[in-house]
């Protein structure tokens, strides 16, 4: 940082301001005062900026230092078996940068090099196989953009509005463009026996996190990925290789993937029995609730992104997604769901990927109860929290895809609330 001296308006600018006020009083269009950022030569317009060798791998400019993953300490006993949250309130478009995309580890993010990497296919196959990283790089590749959402995203909100900000209430999600090998090709290489109906994917870390899924899914759109957003996976996202399971809950996207087992039944591992199962009001539980249902949230305005510019033009921006396919439509309400208007879907709408929506309104400065409601290509409409509670009760923890309400106050501050 070359220059931190605070610049005030120059004397000339202040003199000019007096004249400007006069002109405004006359009702005509000159700015109230000449802007010294324009009229005075600024330091950055005169001296050098950073040379090309200053940052061989760049990080965001310091003015964006608030845009980081954050965790909620009281949620878990240990930060190596915990979760943090994507700052979705501060991001736009649909692609999540790896450096601020949420992390969930069960035993910490490990360092596993490409040279030490091995992937085994075992179980009900003709030939159990071992692949090195180099082997994987020689298989035909595909590119897929997909959202990865933790099944517990919004899980703290079942009992009532709890956390202030969509980073914390909807931020267990990221969306990246992956390059990798279809799992189908690796399974074909080993030759799945006819009695093989399930696969079980397992990580190389100490938690050995593993999940079962039907063979049909594994042969459909599951990717053994090594690139995300054009570069190698970051350590915390499973470097060098992770599983990408479009539309399915994030826990199944096994990181540091080391083994695919083929079985005639589900393994029923700890992560798919004691966790990631959905306890219903009557004490019974759903299992194998893999697909993430259609959901949306307004990312700004939101509690961490209050309105500071006063009334007038206001951009309402948000994200919508569905594990069942493409987002078909997003409606926005500014009065708590009494009346709705359809938002614009901006950019490409891809299946099982985040979709950006925008609605531009003229805010009159009064209080708003902001909501968004996603519809996907199956015709499914995102439900309210009360509709879900009526079916599932309050102990569900996972798969809260309900409509979020933000209470925008007249001063532009925003709160997470429930309404009835």
């Amino acid at each position, binding site marked *: 940082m070359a220059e931190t001296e605070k610049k005030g308006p120059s004397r000339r600018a202040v003199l000019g301001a007096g004249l400007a006020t006069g002109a405004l009083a006359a009702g005509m269009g000159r700015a109230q005062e000449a802007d010294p950022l324009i009229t005075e030569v600024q330091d950055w317009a005169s001296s050098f900026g950073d040379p090309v060798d200053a940052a061989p791998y760049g990080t965001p400019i310091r003015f964006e230092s608030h845009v980081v993953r954050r965790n909620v300490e009281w949620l878990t006993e240990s930060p190596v078996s915990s979760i943090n949250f994507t700052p979705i309130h501060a991001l736009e478009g649909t692609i999540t940068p790896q450096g601020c995309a949420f992390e969930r580890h069960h035993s910490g993010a490990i360092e596993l090099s490409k040279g030490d990497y091995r992937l085994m296919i075992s179980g009900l196959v003709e030939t159990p196989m071992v692949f090195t990283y180099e082997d994987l790089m020689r298989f035909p590749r595909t590119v897929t953009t997909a959202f990865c959402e933790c099944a517990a995203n919004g899980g703290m909100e079942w009992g009532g509005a709890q956390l*202030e900000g969509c980073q914390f209430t909807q931020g267990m999600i990221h969306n990246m463009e992956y390059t990798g090998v279809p799992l189908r090709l690796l399974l074909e*290489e080993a030759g799945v026996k006819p009695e093989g109906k399930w696969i079980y994917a397992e990580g190389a870390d100490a*938690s050995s996190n593993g999940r079962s899924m039907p063979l049909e899914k594994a042969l459909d759109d599951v990717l053994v990925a090594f690139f995300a957003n054009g570069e190698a996976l970051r350590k915390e996202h499973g470097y060098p290789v992770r599983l990408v399971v479009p539309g399915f809950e994030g826990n199944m996207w096994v990181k540091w993937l080391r083994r695919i087992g083929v079985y005639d039944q589900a393994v*029923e591992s*700890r992560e798919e029995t004691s966790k990631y199962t959905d306890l219903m009001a009557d004490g019974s539980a759903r299992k*194998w*609730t893999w697909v993430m249902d259609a959901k949306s949230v307004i990312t700004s305005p939101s509690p*961490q992104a209050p309105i500071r510019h006063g009334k007038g033009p206001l951009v309402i921006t948000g994200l919508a997604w569905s594990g069942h396919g493409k987002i078909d439509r997003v409606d926005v309400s500014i009065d708590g769901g009494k009346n709705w208007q359809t938002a614009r879907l901006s950019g490409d709408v891809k299946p099982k990927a985040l979709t950006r929506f925008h609605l531009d309104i003229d805010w009159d400065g009064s209080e708003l109860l902001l909501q968004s409601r996603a519809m996907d290509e199956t015709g499914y409409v995102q439900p309210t929290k009360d509709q879900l509670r009526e*079916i599932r009760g309050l102990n569900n923890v996972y798969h809260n895809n309900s409509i979020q309400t933000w*209470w925008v106050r007249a001063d532009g501050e925003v709160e997470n609330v429930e309404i009835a």
Partner: protein
Amino acid sequence: MSKSLKLLACTVALTAATPVLAEKIGLGRPALPEEVAAWDVAVLPDGTGLPEGSGDVFTGDEVFAEKCASCHGDFAEGIDNWPVLAGGQNSLTNRRPVKTVGSYWPYLSTVWDYIHRSMPFGAAQTVTPDEAYAITAFILYSNGLVEDDFVLSKENFSEIRLPNEGGFRPDDRAEAEYPLFMGEPCMADCAGDLKVTKRAVDLNVTPEDPDGKPAGTLPPLTLAAAGDVAAPAEEPAAEAAEEAPAVETAAADPALVEAGEKVFKKCKACHKVGDGAKNATGPILNGIVGKAAGAVDGFKYSKPMQAAAEGGLVWSHEALAEFLANPKGYMKGTKMSFAGLKKAEEIDAVIAYLGTFGG
């Protein structure tokens, strides 16, 4: 067909939009039996994958106390927010359900598999098959599902059924939910008068920035002049809390301290250091180097540690080094369920790092 010919065939197939290859590409190599045995250790609900072995409740109690109780409690009741493994029967309809092996888990295979493959936390894959049988037997006993003379083995494993096996059903949202949420939704006059019924601010559990706003709140754009934003936009330095004991730090090799901070990641799950640190699964370690053993206020030490404290043990550099190299060898019965640091340089580094935190 030779490998090169197969690859050629593959290249041709790739000219189609998506690779659809019935034929093998010829990459990778067959896994050796001993490699499969080393990695393919998952145990399935029908017992597939279980190795030979057995263990009784009494042995399980001992192994559990040594390897598991520091988080899960002596009776599998769970310490702090670590998982509760016993009890909770008939609690699944309560507002605060207690989901344990006895009250919730459907299959015993999951218990054995998880203990053997993923536990203890921070020292996974150090439990032998016999120990896994014994710990599993003890957890069954803690849940009142077997008597204290019970022996679990590969042979009788599948006879044990957990009470909640019938409590699960495959995903039924397609029938139970989706039909309710289909179709053209209401667009106008959809609700009557609405009131705010719950406010997150009332709970006051959101992480905050220093100004009391929710953590990560976007700074006002009106502060955007470079000079103005410099100070407030910077993250508070994480090292700030560690500046206080600068006197001790001055003597330590900064590179060694830095290396020690990395080593300490293995300890952080249980031990806290620095300003505001509190006892957790393990005691706080501020000022531990040179301090009397078993002397952190408010921490409940194991009996052997209490005895060592009464015997006058002081955590000198040498004593700490010996303890950290092999905690359970140095002090049988310590609650610290950590396998130990294998490298002398790691031990030196972590002690140097701990030395930077005053009491």
